[in-house]
């Protein structure tokens, strides 16, 4: 029995979502174990820079903001792909979650009363912040929002939040096992009971059994190779765990966000806060092309829209030449040294360390890079996975689905803590009602299966491709053929090449069989899953013959609400040759599908009425495996509550109205 242990709650992934979830379960008295590839404070949450969206309405440019406006901006940003009830839960709880982080010690930047200098749409503006708001949490502007809403701690918001939440995890005595990776879930087809894990210190396998298992492993940007802002650990291990069961569907995997300002060519992120604070995008003629292309929002249209305009500039020959390929410029010079070394300090440090430039004197080379996966493990509004009781997901790993086909900047960092609270609450409640069952025989079966998979890699000899070469090939296919602009023809090529690549993984040979953690073996164990995530992304994008949010088909430019107002679901067990695709309604509609107010506006109207659509939602989701929720479907929606907010937002001239 030495290789099987147990805990009440197993959390896979030690970033903000996983840790906030663990806190909630631990505070309720459960024994919680977090496993993480890296010490939790090194999780990719730490790299989030610019801000966390919450409608506190504390500064002049945020006056009148409300969760209703946050709801509107988020649904529009999603291009109506989001589950609107989940957006509601998110927008209503974000202010509480952000204030709670202040309670845990996050040093949020605060309102300074008196004259403040801002740069807004190319103008230098002085605004008097009122005395009565002194010391409340400050906001900055981010793309796609009617009000300034992003709360921030300089440009180290994720770092500050992660350290505060990890401090709480230490305070609560949560057991953290860093350098440990889950290789497979343990389940009997109906209930998940933990995971087979591999220690990255010793290379040894074991099983951790649990009443509840939470996946919070973040995104899978590394399937785009080097063309991503993501950390090297974002290899989609959690999504692969769920997909491998063949039971739990992944949702909307074709919904991939490209961030407008990845440093070129390293891909390192520079925050949207740069443009929020007044930064410009320039082409090779030093023109602010966004002013003409998006007069209302300019550089602060949503990320999908800005990224597409940037790549179009490059395609039109207006990029700046570079040995690695053309890029554009981010111009922050007018923000000045003091602003850049305080409110955007981390951006200044990146410019200094990796480019050797001063952003108040020099331009920054940028190009859109893969940044975020809106899709992930499909869960209900409580965070429980479809079709497998006892499994939960939160944060970027999940498709909870508040982002639909495009996520607004600052909404994911806020999602981690809001979802962490909500899903952690579900887990705490479910765990309290369960006895710890130890399905030892099932656990042994999965343990032996993983041992055989591992041994298979070590035993394979002879000639074969290197796992790193296959990884590079995956990245090239994804960036070149499943990128910002997509066509049916290229997507079909990508699928063909990825199918071939998947077969090649079975012929790859390790160059080292060294005992211990063996970094090459660790990567090899993830590679098949990564190629499969690439394949379901490409196949999902090929099937979806419309353009919605970040999914832009130049051969199908319209958003088609008549046929595609739905969510892609895909299941694919390890033993199956082909993935199985299904579609479910996006969720109950409250805000009717309409124009976003930025980007292109071609669309096909839905044929049904809202009432007809909504009538089909409960059964439409249950039939795909949605498990019962604690409260009935739609209970959190507050239909029509956004109407006043829409009028007020319209009066501000944000372009977010009708």
């Amino acid at each position: 029995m030495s290789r099987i242990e147990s805990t009440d709650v197993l959390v896979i992934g030690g970033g903000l979502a996983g840790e906030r979830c663990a806190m909630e379960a631990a505070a309720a008295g459960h024994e919680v174990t977090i496993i993480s590839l890296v010490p939790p404070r090194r999780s990719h949450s730490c790299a989030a820079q610019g801000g966390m969206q919450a409608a506190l309405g504390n500064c002049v440019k945020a006056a009148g903001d409300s969760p209703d406006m946050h709801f509107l901006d988020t649904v529009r940003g999603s291009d109506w792909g989001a589950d609107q009830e989940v957006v509601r839960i998110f927008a209503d709880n974000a202010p509480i979650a952000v204030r709670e982080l202040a309670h845990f010690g996050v040093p949020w930047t605060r309102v300074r009363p008196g004259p403040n200098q801002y740069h807004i749409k190319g103008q230098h503006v002085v605004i008097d912040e009122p005395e009565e708001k002194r010391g409340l949490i400050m906001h900055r502007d981010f793309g796609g929002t009617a009000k300034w809403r992003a709360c921030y701690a300089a440009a180290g918001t994720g770092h500050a939040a992660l350290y505060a939440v990890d401090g709480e995890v230490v305070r609560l005595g949560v057991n953290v096992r860093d350098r440990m990776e889950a290789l497979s879930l343990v389940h009997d087809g109906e209930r998940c009971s933990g995971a087979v894990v591999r220690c990255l210190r010793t290379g040894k396998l074991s099983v951790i059994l649990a009443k509840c298992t939470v996946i919070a492993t973040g995104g899978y940007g590394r399937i785009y190779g080097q063309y991503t802002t993501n950390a090297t650990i974002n290899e989609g291990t959690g999504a692969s765990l769920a997909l491998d069961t063949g039971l739990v569907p992944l949702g909307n995997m074709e919904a991939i966000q490209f961030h407008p300002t990845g440093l070129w060519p390293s891909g390192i992120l520079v925050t949207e806060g740069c443009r929020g604070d007044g930064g410009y995008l320039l082409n090779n003629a030093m023109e602010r092309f966004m002013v003409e292309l998006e007069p209302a929002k300019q550089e602060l249209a949503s990320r999908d829209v800005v990224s597409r305009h940037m790549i179009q500039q490059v395609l039109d020959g207006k990029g700046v030449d570079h040995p690695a390929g053309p890029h554009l410029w981010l111009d922050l010079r007018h923000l000045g040294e003091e602003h850049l070394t305080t409110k955007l300090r981390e951006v200044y440090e990146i410019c200094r360390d990796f480019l050797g430039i001063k952003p108040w004197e020099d331009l920054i080379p940028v190009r859109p890079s893969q940044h975020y996966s809106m899709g992930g493990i499909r869960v209900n509004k409580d965070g429980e996975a479809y079709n497998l009781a006892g499994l939960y997901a939160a944060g970027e790993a999940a498709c909870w689905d508040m982002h639909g086909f495009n996520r607004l900047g600052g909404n994911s960092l806020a999602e981690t803590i809001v979802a962490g609270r909500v899903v952690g609450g579900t887990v705490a409640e479910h765990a309290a009602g369960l006895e710890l069952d130890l399905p030892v025989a099932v656990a042994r079966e999965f343990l032996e299966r993983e041992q055989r998979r591992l041994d298979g890699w070590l035993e394979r000899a002879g000639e074969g491709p290197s796992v790193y070469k296959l990884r590079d090939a995956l990245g090239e296919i994804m960036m070149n053929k499943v990128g910002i602009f997509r066509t049916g023809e290229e997507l079909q090529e990508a699928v063909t090449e990825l199918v071939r690549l998947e077969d090649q993984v079975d012929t790859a040979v390790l160059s080292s069989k060294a005992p211990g953690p063996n970094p090459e073996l660790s990567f090899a164990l993830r590679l098949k899953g990564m190629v499969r995530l690439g394949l379901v992304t490409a196949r999902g994008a090929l099937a979806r013959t419309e353009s919605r949010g970040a999914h832009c088909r130049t051969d199908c430019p319209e958003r088609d609400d008549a046929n595609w107002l739905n969510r892609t679901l895909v299941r694919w067990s390890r033993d199956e040759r082909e993935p199985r695709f299904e579609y479910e309604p996006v969720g109950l509609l409250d805000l009717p599908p309409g124009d976003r107010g930025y980007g292109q506006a071609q669309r096909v109207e839905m044929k049904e009425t809202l009432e007809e659509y909504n009538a089909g939602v409960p059964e439409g989701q249950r039939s795909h495996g949605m498990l019962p929720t604690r409260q009935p479907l739609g209970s959190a929606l507050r239909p029509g509550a956004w109407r006043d907010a829409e009028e007020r937002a319209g009066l501000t001239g944000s372009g977010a109205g009708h």
Partner: protein
Amino acid sequence: MANRELTFEIFRFNPQDPSSEPRLQTFTLEEEPYMTLFRALNRIREEQDATLQFDFSCRSAVCGSCGMMVNGRPTLACKTLTSDLDDKVRLHPLPAFKLIGDLSVDTGTWFRAMAERVGAFIKEKAPFDPDALEERMDDDLAQAIYESDRCIECGCCVASCGVANVKPGFVAPAGMNRIARFMMDPRDARTDGDWFEVVASDDGVFGCIGLMACHDVCPKELPLLEVYAYLRRRALGTAFLSRK
């Protein structure tokens, strides 16, 4: 102009392999424009020796994974440009931490133990009230807290510390910085008296022998010299006050 050929002498030892002996191994690599040690080490592992162990994650100097000794000086490998180094580069793992293998060390266990020991979290004055506005804070104070909150726990200061290397119980610069960060935070309920035991002992601020290498090597340029001075003054103040 031809690119330089770089020679890397890298410490090798795999504790999981009974046949492994600690040694230096030499690799050569052609330099590329803007090459960092992140790029160089990955190329060596992928092209020359797949067993080489090291840690990177964010590759943008914010996660703190890749602290190592570069020519005898602790620093973040990801932001070290090879163009700033001589042709010959010698790499060792950080001392003062348990070795996992080659250039990889166990900082996670060390920092968790430190966090538990110094209580590196807010000790709340009252429970969180979800219906209340946030407690106000002057922005200057928020910025001062943020300044010391910027520590990324890479371990470079610990590795450079003359005391931490010979005295495992020493709270060490990163721990001192954590204490200072919570001491100045008005949301924390602890008083100077509560901090006194951990700050004012030989394992605390008075165990420092004043070399201040920590201040010189910190990749985030934290003002550790000022942190130590601040803690000494606060500790002495507490001592004098309690004698009255």
